[in-house]
């Protein structure tokens, strides 16, 4: 009796999810878009901040440290609040976004998520720099390389291997952090979940499992990609 009931509920849940596949996939796509764009930006900013923090110019070191100290120690929700509420208040509204069909709130979310994540990227990269023996950079400088060349041609390629594992964890954390964007008017996976729970509370378990699986697939893809990259790098030396 109970078994049959459960089975009935399960098939009912599956049926329900199948009906909701449209919103589900658009939510998943929202999370993917946000994570990919923010991830790329966070990596670029993180690289710059990491380079600033080992730069020979004291002012750049101070600026890099300040950036990390500020964004790393601010709760992500507050960073989102600052970009989504404060930026428009001071007149920054990204009017051009509409023209290319991008939601302004998406841009605010990208800025919040990438600035916040960039601090962690910077620290992961910096720990990679530290793992490269000092003599490597000294030899590069002795040959006449500039600071930028030393970093790009000698230190960074060797740091990459030890940077990959912490970077992978960080991108995974970022995907999950992207859920906060829901509260700032961005259509993504957690938004899908909340909408469904509100409209169809009877399918709570199915909705929950679907969203969980959605996130797990994304994070597994990231760790898979990074494992592959790590193995590649291990072979080539």
């Amino acid at each position, binding site marked *: 009796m109970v078994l049959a009931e459960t089975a009935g509920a399960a098939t009912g849940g599956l049926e329900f999810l199948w009906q909701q596949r449209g919103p589900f996939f658009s939510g998943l796509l929202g999370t993917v878009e946000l994570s990919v764009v923010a991830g790329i930006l966070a990596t670029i900013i993180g690289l710059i901040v990491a380079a600033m923090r080992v730069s*020979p110019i004291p002012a750049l070191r101070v600026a890099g440290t300040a950036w990390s100290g500020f964004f790393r120690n601010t709760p992500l929700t507050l960073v989102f609040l600052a970009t989504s509420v404060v930026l428009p208040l001071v007149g920054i509204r990204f009017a051009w976004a509409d023209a290319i069909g991008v939601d302004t709130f998406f841009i605010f979310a990208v800025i919040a998520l990438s600035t916040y994540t960039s601090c962690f990227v910077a620290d992961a990269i910096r720990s990679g720099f530290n793992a490269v023996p000092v003599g490597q950079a*000294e*030899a590069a400088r*002795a040959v*006449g*390389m500039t600071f930028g060349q030393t970093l790009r041609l000698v230190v960074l390629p*060797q740091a990459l291997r030890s940077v990959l594992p912490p970077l992978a964890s960080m991108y995974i954390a970022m995907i999950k952090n992207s859920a906060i964007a829901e509260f700032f008017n961005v259509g993504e996976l957690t938004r899908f979940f909340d909408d469904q729970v509100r409209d169809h509370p009877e399918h709570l378990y199915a909705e929950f499992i679907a969203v969980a699986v959605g996130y797990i697939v994304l994070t597994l893809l990231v760790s898979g990609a990074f494992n592959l990259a790590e193995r590649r790098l291990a072979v080539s*030396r």
Partner: protein
Amino acid sequence: MDTQTEATTPEPTEPPTAGEPLVVLDGVNKWFGPLHVLQDINLTVHTGEVVVVIGPSGSGKSTLCRAINRLEPIDQGTITVDGSVLPEEGKALARLRSEVGMVFQSFNLFAHKTILENVTLGPVKVRREKSDLVRERAMGLLERVGVANQAEKYPAQLSGGQQQRVAIARALAMQPKVMLFDEPTSALDPEMINEVLDVMTSLAREGMTMIVVTHEMGFARRAANRVVFMADGQIVEQATPDEFFTNPQSERARDFLSKILTH
């Protein structure tokens, strides 16, 4: 005091190969915290001269060597290389460093590059020379130091002696005006020391200007024009190898020599 002809230490007889002053240290001082590692150093190295710097460990000789291409910044005084004072950190310093070859105690070959790439990287990236021309020159240099057959390997696959010879080739590829050697054989197994010293001796014979920090007294006797003896951050005495080894003037030098020559 401000001209290099007026050295504070007794000037040795000029080496026969002496040319123009190439590297000039004038009143150089450096501190590591409270430790005064370089104390009012005045030293002039002329074109074509081979100067060997010896002294007990902690005497500041490595710091002296590293200060010449500003891997160690100095606190007071000036260092001049081929007429120009060492600039602050930046593009000008990078350019000057490209003209000063450096060989390290621990080789410091680029671990992620092949032997050939180690030698070509500087000329191609720093001097923007054509890569096929550089490649040819690099193979010639590897040939000369006897590791051409290892060109496609990675540094970790070579012995210490081979790595150090590649490091010399890497420095030579930049066609430097002067070569600095910072204890180039100290990290080597005994049987590999000679293969490196042989390369250095032949360089010296060809007229390369060299500043060599080393414990190899045999090399100093064979190849040096001048021996500079340092202790406690000071240049205690300098003389031709013959004079220095047979008739050291200072108590510190006699003491040092007696310790290394009796073992």
